């Protein structure tokens, strides 16, 4: 009996160590991104790094302002497309659709989350970019193309989290609203959506993280020009595509500057995730 108790104790300690592996990985990632990126940040100066658009890493100029602006614009554009479409799908699937339709369509949407980002990027290049070039002008590889592709890519995230949030609103809320004579739409708009607000906001925040962190699809359709975009039809380079484009051949300070770019991105994502996590806990 003694031996058995001791064995149980060891198993519990071992499992505790295992349980720390996820947090440990996150800590390691943070540690490495910071330790590789901080020295060059210190050398270039934080304000210089963040607010200058002069990126010539082999000559000692590390300014990522244009990339930050491009990433932010691309993400906002993606949200402008993905949020209305995704929320509409979620409302239809959660409120209007029959249970059978929901049973088929919700897994179908989630399956689509599995389509690799390179495939989205590729379809963007062969279908969307020529359309933009021929109809709207410019090089086609553009901020607009990035926003459109990202807008579609974040749909599954928005739809599936929002559906769960909408379904979690108690039936009694809907029944009370319908009982006092509200139409189904008034019930959705005035009662169900406000009640599901924190879940919907979580979905949007997570989708934002997706969009700002997406790399491969963006590289393929962005054109990757190094400058501040002045119109949606301009070619842009985002934070993520800058890292992926140059990591293959960078060394020394140049590579460190790419890690510093990653550091900025990582900081933004952590803030977004923490916000989503807190929101989820509030519910």
């Amino acid at each position: 009996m003694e031996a058995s108790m001791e064995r149980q104790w060891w198993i519990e300690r071992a499992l505790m160590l295992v349980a720390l592996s996820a947090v440990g990985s996150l800590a390691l990632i943070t540690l490495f991104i910071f330790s590789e990126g901080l020295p060059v940040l210190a050398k270039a100066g934080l304000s210089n790094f963040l607010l200058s658009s002069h990126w010539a890493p082999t000559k000692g100029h590390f300014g990522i302002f244009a990339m930050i602006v491009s990433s932010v614009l691309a993400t906002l554009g993606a949200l402008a497309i993905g949020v209305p479409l995704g929320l509409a799908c979620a409302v239809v699937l959660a409120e209007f659709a029959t249970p059978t339709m929901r049973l088929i369509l919700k897994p179908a949407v989630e399956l689509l989350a599995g389509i690799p980002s390179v495939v989205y990027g590729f379809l963007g290049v062969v279908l969307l970019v020529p359309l933009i070039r021929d109809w709207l002008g410019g090089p086609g590889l553009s901020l607009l193309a990035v926003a459109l592709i990202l807008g579609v890519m974040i749909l599954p995230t928005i739809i599936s989290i929002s559906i769960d949030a909408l379904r979690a609103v108690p039936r009694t809320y809907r029944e009370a609203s319908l009982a006092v004579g509200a139409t189904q739409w008034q019930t959705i708009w005035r009662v169900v959506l406000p009640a599901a607000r924190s879940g919907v906001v979580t979905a949007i925040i997570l989708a934002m993280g997706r969009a700002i962190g997406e790399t491969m699809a963006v590289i393929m359709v962005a054109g990757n020009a190094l400058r501040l975009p002045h119109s949606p039809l301009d070619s842009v380079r985002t934070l993520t595509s800058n890292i992926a484009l140059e990591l293959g051949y960078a060394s020394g300070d140049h590579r460190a500057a790419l890690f510093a770019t990653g550091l900025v991105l990582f900081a933004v994502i952590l803030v977004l995730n923490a916000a989503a996590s807190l929101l989820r806990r509030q519910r």
Partner: protein
Amino acid sequence: MSAPSAIVARPQPPPRRLLGPADAQRLAKAVLWGLTSLALAILVFIIGYIAWKGLPQITAAFLSEPVRDMGRAGGIFSTVVSTALVTAIALAIATPLGVGTAIYLTEYTREGWLVSVVRFGAECLAGVPSIILGLFGFVLFVLKLGFGWSVLSGGLTLAVMVMPTIIRTSEEAIKTVPHELREVCYSLGVPKWPTITRVVLPAALPGIVTGIVLSVGRSVGETAVVLFTAGAAVGTPHSPFDSGRTLAVHFYILAREGISMPNAYGTAFVLVAAILLINTAAYAIMYGVMRKNA
């Protein structure tokens, strides 16, 4: 005493509206269904287009021959091998760690600070973009630990990527195992660990398998992480320390460098078909479980 006329409300005219509630309902419903159809049409179109362009490229030779002439000729077999190896390494590491974490969170701790920290860590890890994971794997495994661009480095980094998925799905699965099962074991004097391995885990197995299968799908489709950790060598890897080009990386290089459009479409089809099959299997398992429990 004020005049009674002040108390009696005058009948107010109904507020002027562009749309009555019934019209608003009809309009909203139409717009929402329209947007939903658009979103679904886009998603169906993506799969349809890849199948239409890619399916004609698929031959037995395409699937069984190694990559030749950087992808201009030959097939994709070597990239399938690399993909399988990278994925196997990732799952071999992430499964025990993820399931172990889930067991600890559900069976060994009450809701306390440690649970919050672990859960918060897993949630944050799930949101870390693949390019950041690529940077991390590149520094730690490729450079610092000296594994070089290799299937091993790729697999290890992917393990970090899929761990949150496995933790979350396993946790959900273990939580749905009825408490009575555990209580019967304890009342018979079975210690905690055998109860978990012989009773709880078998009951939670379908849910755990769902998480593992979903993780396979994510590993197969991932590009940024493997590109910077496993490299892009076209040969078939013979040891964990060889570089290997996965299907997704191969497709990316074919498409981006315009090496061969027919082969790019063929590779895209294999990639998408494989992932859809894998994910369908995962949902079929989950749906089977849900029906059994209902």
